[in-house]
């Protein structure tokens, strides 16, 4: 019995590694996916680590995977001493204003295109979608002239208006397909009860549309937050810069090779977006892919 036990154990010991190897071989796509995920995430971790490094430690120029004495001094310095807090606030204003305008314009147009009997409807929708592909740098010359004539040069208004090119085509498309799905009887009932069409839209349809509006809002915020081209072209005073523009400007002048300071601005600028993606990833994915693949 002991002999048989030993033999049995030897046998299992003999074929177990082979089974493990076979399982590993079969599960290589999982390992590969984990490796790919690490490759895509590692740059963020690298920048985060170095943003916690003191300038003294950075100057020693020893590559470390984690600072010996992690500190938030860089964050304090860039936010309060170098005025980056103002730039972050500017970005919030621009992204929020663009998102608000996008939601209003996009839901009005989306509703009209989905519901109301209009001649030339497909031409209007086609124009709205096509506008999203217009080359950005082809717009900045003429818009620069217009903004300076309107006295809007070096204002966040100029950037917010131009940012609609990123957000409005996608949002209109998303909201038009949403309104096309909602049952029409609901608003007809509201209109029978004495609502105007706009009243019905506001009181009855908007609450039902809330999830799609949230999707459009998140995507608009992300896209407007990312703007660089218009900020670079229209903004002149450093206190008017948005975060991405200020980050680059500071990185190339004041901070120069002190990447620990630049890294702090990078983390601050990326953080709101990272949080949005982690919290709202399902909406973001469905909004992006639903808008394009269908």
């Amino acid at each position, binding site marked *: 019995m002991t002999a048989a036990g030993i033999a049995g154990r030897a046998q299992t010991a003999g074929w177990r590694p082979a089974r493990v190897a076979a399982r590993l071989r079969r599960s290589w796509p999982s390992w590969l996916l984990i490796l790919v995920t690490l490759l895509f995430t590692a740059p963020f971790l690298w920048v985060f680590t170095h943003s916690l490094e003191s300038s003294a430690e950075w100057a020693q120029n020893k590559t470390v995977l984690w600072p010996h004495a992690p500190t938030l001094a860089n964050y304090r310095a860039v936010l309060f001493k170098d005025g980056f807090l103002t730039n972050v606030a500017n970005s919030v204003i621009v992204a929020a204003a663009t998102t608000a305008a996008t939601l209003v314009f996009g839901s009005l147009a989306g509703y009209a*295109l989905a519901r109301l009997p209009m001649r030339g409807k497909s031409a209007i929708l086609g124009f709205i979608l096509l506008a999203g592909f217009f080359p950005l740098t082809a717009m900045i010359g003429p818009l620069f002239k217009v903004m300076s004539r309107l006295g809007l040069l070096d204002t966040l208004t100029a950037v917010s208006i131009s940012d609609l090119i990123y957000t409005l085509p996608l949002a209109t498309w998303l909201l038009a397909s949403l309104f096309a799905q909602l049952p029409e009887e609901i608003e007809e009932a509201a209109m029978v009860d004495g609502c105007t069409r706009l009243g019905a839209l506001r009181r009855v349809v908007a609450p039902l549309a809330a999830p799609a509006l949230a999707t459009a809002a998140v995507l608009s915020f992300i896209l407007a937050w990312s703007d660089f081209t218009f900020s670079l072209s229209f903004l002149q005073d450093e206190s008017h810069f948005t975060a991405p523009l200020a980050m680059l400007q500071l990185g190339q002048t004041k901070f120069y090779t002190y990447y620990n300071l630049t890294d702090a601005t990078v983390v601050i600028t990326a953080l709101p977006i990272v949080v949005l993606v982690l919290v709202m990833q399902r909406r973001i994915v469905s909004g992006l892919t639903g808008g394009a693949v269908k």
Partner: protein
Amino acid sequence: MSAVDVAPATAPRARRALRWRPGERTGYAMASPAVIALAAITAYPLLWNLWTSFHDVDPLTGGTGQFVGLSNYRAVFSSQTGLLAALMHTLIYMVVSVTVEMALGLGIALLLNRPMRGRALCRTLILLPWAVPTVVSALVWQTLFDPQGGGVNYMLSMLHLPGSHTVWIGATASATWASILVADAWQSTPFVALMLLAGLQAIPRELYEAARVDGASAWQTFRGVTLPNLRPALMVTLVFRTLQAFLIFDIIYALTQGGPGTSTQTISYMTYYNFIVSDNFGVGAAISIVMVIVCLLIAGVYRVLLRPST
């Protein structure tokens, strides 16, 4: 619209044809803010560029507003202004980067399409680089490509690979382009993967079961079921990516400013430079028109190439 409203009705029948349907006027009113806003920031610039590209508005030469024919366009296609070189850089980069990103993106989408624990987390983490601003991507990679303290050379020396002393950005054209490609692919591949994953998930399960019943190999299933059914998603993603790659600007400005020398100047960079830096609006407008035409050509080529074969 109002012209239709006040037009004298010559015959009752014509009048009926022109009459507003119920709700139609509301429809136009509701659609107009979006249409007017987008027309103001795209259609107006297009027309302005078209007019300006044929006129002399350059303040350096007087800017008389005279019709100058094709002279602004001649500047675009002359070898002296560097614009033709920029156009060539851009087209080569477009082909290379789109090929790389589509291949990587398809691979990642196939990996993400397999059932596995933690798949949603992987998808979210891979999506992050797409969502952050391009300047974030540029500065992240500037840090990583730093010759002394950067992570890329650190990894190369850890793994005993050659090139661990390379000066990536700003020294040689090829290393600088490679850095741009890495930073751009890091940010754009997640988008490709996501779009293709949505395409993969839309393929009916029964097709795969039928292929298995027929005894098809993994490769045969991929060729016979996956690829043909992925065609619409591939087409849309390819058009998106190609246009974006052709118009690459933010990452170039943030990472290289067109350098070393003029070797990484792209067509969008030159448009920005002429419009904003050197106030050369005539040439800027001419490049803009050329860009719009190339974009239309790209869309047209894909339409013909990827038309469903059936």
